[in-house]
């Protein structure tokens, strides 16, 4: 079993990312969409948290490229290890995991 967790709000505005990361299991995936991508910028408070989670929790972290572009976040400013996907990749992640959990 594995879960795709979606987070659509910035870690600066809401507790959704923190709460999500506290409830993942190794093998799970976390996808940042909408304002959620703001958390993935390197050299930031939330980015450091994500980097730590990548090292400690055994989860994979993804960010939706279309939402990054809209918020002016280039791929080379992402936290190391965060992977960029498009909507087709989002669909694949939903299919590859056994359930999708939205952290609204």
């Amino acid at each position: 079993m594995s879960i795709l967790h979606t987070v659509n709000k910035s870690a600066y505005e809401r507790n959704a990312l923190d709460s999500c990361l506290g409830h993942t299991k190794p093998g799970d995936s976390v996808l940042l969409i909408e304002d959620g991508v703001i958390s993935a910028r390197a050299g930031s408070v939330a980015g450091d948290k994500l980097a730590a989670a990548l090292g400690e929790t055994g989860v994979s972290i993804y960010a939706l490229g279309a939402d990054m572009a809209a918020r002016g976040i280039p791929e080379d400013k992402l936290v190391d290890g965060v992977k960029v996907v498009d909507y087709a990749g989002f669909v694949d992640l939903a299919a590859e995991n056994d359930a999708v959990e939205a952290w609204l």
Partner: protein
Amino acid sequence: MGDMSEGGTTKKFLYLNRKASYGTVYALESLEVVLIAAAFEQDVSLAFIDDGVYQIIKGQDTKGIGMKNFSPTFNALGDYDINKLYVEKESLDERGLTEDDLMPLVYEDEDDDWAEKPSIKIVNRAEMADLMQDQDVILSF
């Protein structure tokens, strides 16, 4: 992907409640879906984490805000065989709450001579994460 029972598919449904009642409509609507879902004979669990624990706090009184107090409806869940209400201990602790601050929700166990038993189970964060892994469908509000 779930077992077959009584001619239909039975899946594990988790209702994820992370917000308090009244400030937004999600708590009320989550409860509405749970009640409707009872007719579909699915395997239903409710998770209360973050501010969601406030949904089942004792002593709610909504007269001053003009809204209906729907918290008594949680008492009816047991009659619909919905008796797996998981409340996260860490979420209670952060908010200065204990199990005693929650409504004493119960159900009658038909496998144990209809003994009255508590519907609320306090679990820690790791156990809550395990519970999530065990679901077919997770509904977030």
